[in-house]
């Protein structure tokens, strides 16, 4: 079997596991704060478990191993065998990192490297910390000890094990469904023998959910070997399945189990699909499971058994079966809370799975490329509409203008709807910060709490991804540079624990992200000094800087206030990158800081990247589009009223001298300079780049237009000052200017 032979399944695994891993990192950090949160522990346990299942299915053994030990550890944790400590969390987080690494490798289609032995050992030691845990198969659940062991060992001895238990139908059903889905023939067998015994013994304890989970875990995790042996026969393919299973499960069992009322519920699963199909009525009355649901379950079973990866099939199955399982019984036993979004992604594990859960299936996963295509086409539509609007406005035909107006409205709605499909909550980015902050704070020996606000704010998917890096950087900075050491904070009369507030909100047509810390703040004078020291500017220039301009200095390449370079920061490259990245997104960054009180960084980004409001201008014959985000004002200027300072033409706007540039000189080759300069008045567009404002002299102002950004193509990609192109309402091409790039290229 080649490494990744089933691309489709792999893709699905990557999507699903990716989501889970993201959640896990968040949950783990949360866990450290609430070490006793049972639900959280369960969720984490299940997360690792699901990933393990998927990995197992794809035979990604290193990943399975790592997840497995971690899972064992969490099993102990949630059973109260161990307490959550920071040290333990460190190891667990390392384990998560290891899994993440492997995940990244798998993404690249590289066989994953196993986690380091030390890590695995550490995990194992922790997992074994209690004498109980020494053997994975060992029962963690004392009351159901025998049952658990029976199942885990996949032994037929289960009969006596189960004899000690009494399970309610419901619980038993869950067990069945889960086990079944796990597709361990052995279990089926096991159970087949179990049920009849149950009513007989029927007086012992009840299985709680947690215990049930443990049982499940063991079934899947521990007995990889024994089950592997037994499974093949069962797994080969559904039809073949009938025979062996019939053999394996003593056929006698089928009968009795079917005949006994209490076990009626078990019967369908004990018999597996064949019999279930034969007598669907038998299960009808069994209890909560409806036909549909049962069918779904069956489908899954079949699905799994047709796979040729016997041992692996099992976990994958479970992961899918479980949501169904959850959806099915109303689970008076309050089946532990479903792990986050699990029921949703699950059905997509395989295409077939979509049919499996006819209940509550309201979401569809769509390839983003398809969405991009749709977005593109809508973009085209918008352009056509623009043209029609233009034509409509000149024609005197009332019918036409009505139709055009209608089209206008519909297109706008369509555009908004399509845009919404691409929206994702910023939570996706925010989710990783608790971990970032925690790790960093621990390594720097600081006490920092991170508060998140407005996680539900939606923004364009591409933006969410593009914002991740800059935000991580800013948050790291806040921890590293901003928040002081606890002692220092105390000395300054602040609480020992520093707070970083990360918030997102929509503000009109853009998103405002703020990162607030209550740390040390920045001292403008110190920044001035640094700037001079680093030779970025001379002392006079530095002294003239306003405070906010000083703060912007930190965005300058090579500017670092740290005297020592650490692994965290101090190289002076990060903020430069942050700034560039955000500017690329047509966003802006604003910093405010009060020495001793903290720093506030505001980032504004547009809601979407695909459509951009621009100001259309003409330079010479050619149309250009200036991103409206950077345009701050437009006015008509008498060119005689300008001055020349240090060789640079400047214009005075409200008592501030702004440099004035003639776009004609930059953007046209012929540049009939004489003409342009002889003109006495000109249209000036004031643009803002960071804290800097400059004036552009343009020939003609056309107006505001929403444009779809088209890439320039590979040949011209990266041309300085050009952000892309767009097609104007009249079908012509306009080049979209990238103002910062333009200034860098031409004004320097």
């Amino acid at each position, binding site marked *: 079997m080649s490494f990744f032979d089933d691309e489709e399944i792999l893709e699905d695994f990557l999507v699903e596991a990716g989501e889970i891993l993201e959640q896990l990192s968040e949950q783990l950090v949360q866990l450290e704060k609430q070490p006793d949160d049972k639900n959280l522990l369960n969720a984490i346990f299940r997360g690792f478990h699901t990933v393990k299942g998927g990995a197992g299915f794809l035979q990604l053994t290193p990943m399975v191993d790592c997840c497995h030990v971690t899972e064992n550890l969490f099993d102990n944790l949630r059973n109260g065998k161990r307490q959550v400590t920071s040290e333990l969390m460190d190891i667990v987080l390392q384990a998560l990192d290891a899994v993440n690494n492997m995940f990244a490798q798998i993404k690249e289609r590289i066989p994953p490297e196993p986690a380091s032995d030390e890590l695995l050992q550490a995990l194992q030691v922790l997992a074994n910390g209690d004498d109980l845990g020494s053997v994975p198969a060992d029962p963690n659940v004392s009351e159901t000890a025998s049952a658990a062991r029976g199942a885990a060992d996949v032994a037929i001895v289960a009969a006596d094990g189960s004899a000690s238990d009494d399970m309610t139908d419901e619980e038993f059903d869950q067990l069945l469904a889960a086990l079944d889905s796990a597709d361990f023939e052995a279990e089926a067998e096991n159970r087949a023998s179990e049920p009849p015994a149950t009513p007989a013994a029927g007086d012992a304890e009840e299985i709680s959910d947690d215990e049930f989970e443990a049982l499940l875990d063991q079934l899947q995790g521990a007995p990889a070997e024994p089950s592997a042996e037994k499974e093949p026969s069962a797994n080969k393919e559904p039809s073949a399945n009938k025979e062996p299973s019939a053999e394996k499960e003593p056929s006698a069992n089928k009968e009795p189990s079917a005949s006994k009322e209490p076990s009626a519920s078990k019967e369908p699963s004990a018999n597996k699909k064949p019999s279930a199909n034969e007598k669907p009525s038998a299960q009808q009355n069994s209890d909560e499971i409806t036909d549909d649901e049962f069918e779904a379950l069956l489908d899954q079973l079949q699905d799994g058994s047709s796979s040729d990866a016997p041992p692996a099939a099992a976990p994958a199955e479970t992961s899918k079966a479980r949501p169904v399982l959850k959806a099915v019984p109303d689970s008076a036993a309050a089946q532990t809370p479903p792990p986050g979004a699990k029921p949703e992604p699950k059905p997509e594990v395989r295409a077939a799975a979509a049919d499996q859960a006819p209940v509550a299936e309201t979401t569809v996963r769509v390839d983003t490329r398809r969405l991009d295509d749709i977005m593109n086409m809508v*973009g085209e539509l918008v352009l056509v509409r623009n043209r029609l609007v233009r034509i409509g406005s000149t024609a005197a035909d009332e019918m036409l203008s009505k139709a055009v107006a209608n089209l206008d409205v519909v297109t706008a709605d369509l555009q908004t709807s399509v845009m919404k499909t691409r929206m994702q909550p910023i939570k996706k980015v925010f989710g990783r910060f608790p971990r970032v902050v925690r790790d960093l704070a621990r390594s720097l020996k600081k006490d920092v709490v991170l508060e998140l606000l407005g996680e539900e704010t939606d923004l364009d998917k591409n933006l969410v991804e593009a914002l991740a890096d800059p935000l991580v950087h800013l948050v790291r900075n806040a921890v590293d540079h901003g928040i002081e050491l606890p002692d220092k904070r105390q000395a300054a009369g602040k609480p020992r624990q520093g707070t970083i507030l990360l918030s997102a909100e929509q503000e009109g047509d853009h998103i405002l992200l703020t990162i607030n810390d209550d740390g040390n703040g920045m001292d403008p004078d110190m920044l001035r000094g640094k700037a001079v020291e680093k030779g970025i500017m001379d002392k006079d220039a530095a002294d003239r800087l306003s405070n906010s301009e000083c703060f912007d200095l930190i965005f300058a390449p090579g500017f670092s206030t740290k005297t020592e370079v650490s692994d965290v920061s101090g190289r002076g490259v990060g903020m430069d990158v942050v700034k560039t990245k955000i500017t690329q997104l047509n966003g802006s960054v604003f910093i405010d800081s009060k020495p001793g009180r903290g720093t506030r960084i505001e980032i504004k980004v547009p809601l979407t990247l695909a459509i951009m409001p621009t100001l259309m201008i003409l330079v010479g014959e050619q149309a250009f589009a200036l991103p409206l985000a950077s345009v701050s004002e437009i006015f008509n200027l008498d060119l005689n009223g300008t001055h020349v300072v240090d060789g640079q033409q400047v214009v005075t706007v409200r008592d501030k001298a702004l440099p004035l540039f003639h776009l004609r000189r930059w953007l046209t*080759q012929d540049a009939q300079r004489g003409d342009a300069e002889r003109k006495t008045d000109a249209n000036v567009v004031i643009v803002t780049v960071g804290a800097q404002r400059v004036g552009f002299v343009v020939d003609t102002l056309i107006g505001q237009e929403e444009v779809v950004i088209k*890439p320039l*193509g590979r*040949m*011209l990609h990266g*041309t300085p*000052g050009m952000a892309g*192109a767009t097609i104007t309402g009249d079908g012509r*091409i306009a080049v979209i200017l990238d103002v910062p790039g333009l200034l860098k290229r031409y004004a320097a």
Partner: protein
Amino acid sequence: MAEVKKQENDQVLQWVTFQLENETYGVDVMVVKEVLKFQDIAPVPGAPGYVMGIINIRGTVISVINTRCRFGLPDRDPDDNTRIVIIEIGQHIVGIVVDSVAEVVYLKRSEIETPPQVNKDESARFIQGVCHRDDQLLILVELDKLLTEEELAELDH
């Protein structure tokens, strides 16, 4: 023997012929995506000299290469016959401006002669071969080489 062998392998190739400054050139029909009438080309300030600008083809932005500049010919104003040939070089789709496009000709591989190795100057680089046809010399160009290795590398970065 050689003759027979030649004929066996004698593939028939199709070439789109176009005119540039009184010379007829041919390009492999497989790389030609479409031929357009000359339309306004929007210049892109700061672009490399051989790129005339960009055009809009049904919503896609395509760069147009100044073929005359590439072939070392003087610039000339477009007229009614001027065409933009959209070609595919590797993964790049670009347009080239030519004086006119004539026809598609069928040439046997055996008819193609190696180009005279006169010099190693700029334009000789992408000449694939020549072919005599109706007393005319047809210059077959290999458009893959229209851009230098470095330029392509730059595109691929």
